[in-house]
């Protein structure tokens, strides 16, 4: 099943000018072994295949989005990576250590939230971290106050967690992850249920963890827009198969060479370019012209032709799709193929 989907895969793990639109700083390329690597990872529950032959490479020092619909297999893959359940086939390594063989050593350098952060509601935020620090080791105790401050919960740390909002619990979950000063954070749907303000807080926190602290953050989500805004690199999973992975820029890149032109008279421009031999496809959409040329460097000629005809061109740029467009396009194609 996944073999057919592999044809759609965008492979390109080099981190380029990822997410320039969101103003992300370009992460430095880290040449150590990948933060996460899987090869042919498969997880079956009886006859149902939850994760199907997944091969992933998560580079170090980036925010990596793991995108998929609900039930696509994201959480199952995370559970396999963290040794919470065994893979049916394939292999995986976390921070260069094979899991589950060296799971304990790997997890000592990983912070993770799976599904949702859970706490003892009758304890305060501080006490919950104290309990968590006790399990992690003596050196983590001294990090409780700094991590609470780091996630902006220092002023509410003496309140019972039962009184916290979901956003606060998410931040406390990240604080718990940070107790052991992890190189890799795995956050399963960290934006789930958050209001726009809470999402912005989490997004900023993830970016800071990557850009200011050099950590790798693996974020699973079904919120495409959030992944596009937060992550440098992403993989798209559908029906247990990874159907594409690469930098966000590569994933949203317009491989069809489509141009968008806006001018003062769209109908006239359409008529003018309809018979043009350099234009392969042409259509009017939402008050603009969208076209594909035989070669992209012919865009200047098209512009000259429109200007020479007395049209005022106000916009001429390559069409840029959102990650959502790309995601829907891929999953729709797969549904049609199926």
């Amino acid at each position, binding site marked *: 099943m996944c073999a057919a989907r592999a044809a759609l895969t965008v492979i390109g793990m080099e981190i380029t000018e990822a997410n320039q639109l969101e103003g992300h700083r370009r992460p430095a390329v880290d040449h150590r072994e990948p933060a996460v690597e899987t090869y042919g990872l498969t997880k079956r529950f009886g006859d149902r295949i939850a994760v199907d032959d997944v091969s992933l490479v998560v580079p170090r020092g980036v925010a990596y989005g793991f995108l998929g619909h609900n039930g696509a297999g994201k959480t199952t893959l995370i559970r396999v990576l963290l040794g*919470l359940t065994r893979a049916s086939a394939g292999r995986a390594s976390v921070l260069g250590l094979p899991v589950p063989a060296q799971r304990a050593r790997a*997890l*000592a350098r990983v912070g993770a*939230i799976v599904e949702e952060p859970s706490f003892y509601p009758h304890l305060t935020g501080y006490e919950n971290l104290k309990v968590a620090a*006790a*399990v992690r*080791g*003596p050196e983590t105790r001294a990090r409780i106050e700094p991590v609470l401050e780091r996630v902006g919960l220092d002023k509410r740390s003496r309140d019972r967690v039962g009184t916290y909002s979901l956003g606060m619990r998410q931040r406390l979950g990240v604080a718990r992850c940070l107790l052991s000063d992890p190189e890799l954070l795995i956050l399963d749907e960290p934006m789930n249920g958050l209001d726009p303000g809470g999402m912005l807080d989490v997004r900023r926190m993830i970016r800071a963890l990557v850009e200011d602290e050099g950590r790798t953050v693996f974020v699973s989500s079904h919120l495409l827009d959030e992944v596009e805004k937060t992550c440098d690199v992403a993989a798209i999973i559908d029906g247990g198969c990874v159907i594409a992975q690469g930098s966000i820029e590569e994933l949203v890149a317009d491989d069809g060479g489509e141009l968008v032109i806006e001018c003062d008279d769209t109908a006239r421009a359409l008529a003018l370019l309809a018979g043009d031999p350099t234009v392969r496809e042409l259509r009017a959409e939402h008050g603009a012209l969208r076209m594909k040329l035989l070669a992209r460097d012919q865009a200047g000629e098209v512009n000259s032709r429109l200007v020479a005809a007395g049209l005022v061109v106000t916009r001429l740029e390559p069409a840029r799709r959102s990650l959502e467009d790309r995601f829907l396009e891929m999953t729709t194609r797969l549904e049609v193929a199926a």
Partner: protein
Amino acid sequence: MTLDPTVARQMISADLLRLRKKRGMIALALAVVLVPLVIATGYDVVRHASDPAHYAPAGGLNNFGRLLDLLGIFMGPVAAILIGAEAGAGDLAAGVFRDNVLTGRSRTALFLARIPAAVAVTLTVTAIAFALGIGTTFGFAGGLPTPDATLILQSLAWLALANSVVCVIAIGVSSLTGSRAGTITALIGWELVLSPLLVQAVSLGSLRRGLLDAVLAFLKPGPASGAPVIPMPVAVAVVVTIAWLLILPALGARRMRTRDA
């Protein structure tokens, strides 16, 4: 990941924190042992005050024997079950078990840390009730004989044994089932209904020596009370106690290791 003593101490102290901060559970455990004690003693005090010729004072040695039954065979174990069930399944109920597992810490270590913490809380509750019971034993003794220091110490040790064993069993069963409510229901039913019936079932003969209640009644110091005592060699009592102490907790620990987090 090996477990050094500092980490073990921290884990126990963390478990102690989460148990003692569970104020509702602590209040219930205290109520379970203190309320019957106060009611029984109050009833005796009123009765004696209203008709001293017919009713003995509320304190003294006989009352002390009844106190031991209450704290070591009936309500003390109920409190121990409440605390043990919380210790065994509290992290599962809160969803924190998965996060603890994600640290890479051995699941056996996570299980073992629960035991000293829960036993400490159980012993504290028992000690508070025992202190109140001793107060009433001496305070309302009138002219009746009172227990000496040796008997008091033996009784304290016996109560500690009885309630600790029940607490550890409750930790084992709740870790095994993953359910606080199920554990509390099943163990209280066993402790207050089924086990006393089996102890009195003469047809079971020496098989009754395998019952924890029979062993605890046999080991109980001080004056005999209403509960039947089945004679047995001390070695049998020791072996049976150790078996109860090990088997169910071992099953609970095994389930902890294999449970899907």
